[in-house]
């Protein structure tokens, strides 16, 4: 599996540093700024709709297996063939099997993160079946042999100059770095592929359990083309895409499109219910739906269940201060941004993927604030940090039952509206007590033992301050009131001297701890006259 921009063996820190040092990438990332506030429009403009959307997403999580069965019944009733895939390999095996039985050799695809997750295009290629991405952003990263960096705008990391240069290799002639010209070229190029496609592969934004309808959201209209031209259509659908009713779309769609791009609706919605019917002149003769599990069902009933409510809008990426600087490839994962930091380790069957991701967050909460279905992303990151102390697959180990009465614990969720503390849903993630593990860090245990007693704290503070001033060769004068934080005492540290500050002092000064801390000053306040 080669993915252009990720050097094997690097850490997220190294990739992040490289990304930040890349001027072309940093320029390209500024284009994402226009989407920073789109999620706020949902929270401010349609709070009740947002609450309903969040509730709809929780409805299926109570019994996800049951809902998948209901959806399967409805899909079969409409004439689709339904398959269940436990693992990525299962998906690829099923899809290749269908393709081979149908004699298909040219797949046209619309954008699907699930197919990225299972590496379908690569698997098809190994089976001698050519697959072309038709979503323009996906096509660009396919040509570049990269993963999508952003789930909504896969090529956001590229400037138009870079795109023109890249596509010129396909076109054989120099394409101008002009948006309209590239669009026109892409239209013609991809039309050739569309017209020859004999198998259409799509994802699904939602699948309705009552009508058995596959709902695909695009602006390009490429899902319409992928589902009308080929003789066979396969939809690869992660199990959490099931929604109870067609009517639920009245809340889910506006929330999705506004959170994703700020649009009130996307330019195209493709709603497929079964294959071609008798007498119809286009559309697939065979419709297959492959439900993908890949560790999701194991999360139901656990404190991580909320992550399955995700509707893949990308809002959390757009607001994340880290993502906006390092871009998706630094994550070296299929799913990037805050939701990717959580989903990647949770779904990892070996427990190897994404272990370093949850720590690469400032926990600022902008993601949780932006999430239109109120996933408490910060809570999930914190829980993962604790659970990842133990090796092995986290998702399969997650066993905490959610609090049966979510309101029981007096929880202030990360406010969903951003400015409304105390409101927002009490969900599995934020209402369940934190689970204490057996594998604790010794340094932190010692720290807690010392710092949970007043004497231990005072002694360690004094020792630290004395050691620091010895090493620095200076004593922090007592700062009078009105001084800037640390101004009177800031000094350049010797980074070897202080555990944990190597990462700090490489780029920032660190103030000296005061030998006389606040409590000493308090005891002396009369004498000091304050």
């Amino acid at each position, binding site marked *: 599996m080669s993915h252009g921009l990720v050097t094997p063996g690097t850490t997220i*820190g190294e990739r*992040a540093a490289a990304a*930040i040092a890349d001027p072309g990438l940093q320029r390209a990332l500024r284009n994402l700024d226009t989407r920073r506030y789109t999620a706020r429009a949902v929270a401010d403009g349609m709070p009740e709709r947002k609450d309903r959307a969040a509730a709809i997403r929780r409805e299926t999580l109570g019994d996800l297996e049951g809902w998948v069965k209901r959806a399967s019944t409805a899909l079969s009733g409409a004439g689709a063939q339904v398959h269940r895939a436990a693992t990525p390999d299962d998906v690829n095996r099923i899809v290749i099997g269908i393709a081979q039985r149908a004699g298909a050799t040219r797949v046209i695809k619309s954008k699907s993160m699930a197919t990225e997750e299972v590496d379908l295009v690569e698997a098809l290629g190994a089976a001698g079946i050519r697959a072309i991405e038709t979503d323009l952003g996906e096509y660009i990263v396919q040509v570049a042999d990269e993963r999508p960096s952003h789930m909504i705008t896969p090529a956001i990391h590229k400037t138009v100059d870079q795109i023109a240069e890249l596509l010129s290799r396909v076109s054989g002639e120099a394409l101008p770095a002009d948006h309209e010209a590239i669009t026109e070229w892409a239209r013609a190029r991809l039309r050739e592929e569309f017209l020859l496609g004999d198998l259409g592969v799509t994802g699904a934004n939602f699948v309705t359990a009552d009508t058995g309808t596959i709902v695909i959201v695009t602006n390009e209209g490429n899902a319409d083309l992928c589902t009308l031209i080929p003789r066979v259509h396969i939809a690869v659908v992660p199990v959490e895409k099931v929604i109870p009713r067609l009517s639920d779309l009245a809340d889910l769609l506006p929330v999705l499109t506004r959170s994703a791009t700020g649009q009130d609706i996307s330019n195209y919605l493709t709603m497929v219910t079964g294959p071609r019917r008798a007498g119809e002149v286009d559309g697939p003769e065979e419709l297959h739906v492959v439900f993908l599990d890949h560790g999701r069902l194991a999360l139901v009933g656990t404190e991580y269940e909320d992550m399955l409510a995700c509707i893949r809008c990308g809002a959390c990426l757009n607001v994340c*201060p*880290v993502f906006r*600087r*390092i871009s998706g490839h630094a994550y070296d994962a299929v799913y990037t941004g805050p939701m990717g930091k959580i989903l990647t380790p949770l779904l990892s069957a070996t427990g190897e993927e994404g272990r370093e991701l949850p*720590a*690469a967050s*400032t*926990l*600022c*909460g*902008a993601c949780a604030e932006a999430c239109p279905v109120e996933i408490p992303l910060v809570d999930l990151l*914190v829980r993962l*940090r604790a659970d*990842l*102390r133990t090796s092995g697959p986290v998702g399969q180990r997650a066993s905490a039952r959610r609090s049966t009465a979510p309101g029981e*614990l*007096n929880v*202030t969720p*990360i*406010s969903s509206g951003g400015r*409304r503390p105390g409101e927002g849903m009490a969900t599995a993630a934020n209402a*369940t007590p*934190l689970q204490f593990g057996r594998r604790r*860090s010794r340094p*932190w*245990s010692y*720290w*807690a033992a010392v*710092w*949970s007693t*007043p004497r231990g704290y005072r002694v360690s*503070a004094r020792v630290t*301050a004395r050691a620091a001033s010895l090493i620095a060769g200076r004593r922090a004068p007592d700062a009078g*009131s009105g*001084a*800037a*934080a*640390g*101004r009177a*005492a*800031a000094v350049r540290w010797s980074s070897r001297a202080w555990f*944990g500050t190597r*990462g*700090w002092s*490489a780029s*920032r*000064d*660190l*103030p000296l*701890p*005061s030998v006389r*801390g*606040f409590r000493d*000053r*308090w005891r002396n*306040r009369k004498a000091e006259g*304050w």
Partner: protein
Amino acid sequence: MTHSPRVGLFVTCVVDQVAPDVGIATVRLLEAAGAQVEFPAAQTCCGQPAISAGEPEAAARLAQHFVDVFDHCDAIVAPSGSCAAMVHHWFSRLLPHDDRVATLSARTFELTTYLVDELGRNDLYAGGLGAPLGTTVTVHDACHGLRNLGIHDAPRSLLLAAGAVLIEMDEADTCCGFGGTFAAKHGEIAAPLADDKLDHAAATDARWLVSSDIACLLHLEGRRRRTGIGPEPIHIASLLASGLLA
């Protein structure tokens, strides 16, 4: 609300050890607002560093000590949104069986919201207690205070009433990059985020970069000392206390 409310000061471990002047300023502001301040000397730390590091057991130990120390106080005030948010957001999940936690969380406040929303006092200099600041400021909205506790208007209200000229920076509510253990573990990202914040602050030409969280300020000041860019970071308590005449 009593006329002279009694407040237990939670000074926070960082202020205690690295920026005691912020603690002193906090006391002076609370007293100027008419509160009676007690300092429970047995206090240590709210446990936030441990939560950030993924060590809930360690955090719970500190949280338990906090509850034991402060439970007798009518109100608990900290010059830190993130510490107050720690109490509000995490204590109930760390100590689900301690039934004091719910009410204790409800009486734990960050300084500016306590002054403005609880005491109803945004004009601390009233009655000749202080002289107008007459300086320009820009505000950085510290994340946990903003998103967990809704701290946004209270600091601005205090600054304006104190006679400061407020110039809003772009992306005032974007994270400064501190993020707890992230600040040391991922300095390669934390420092550029500090640079972004300092750039936005510099663009306002304000004299002071004000925030209610000492950690953000240490991070920003530490970076500013290397780059020379941006207004001088200062804790809102320190700035407001500088205008008090007594």
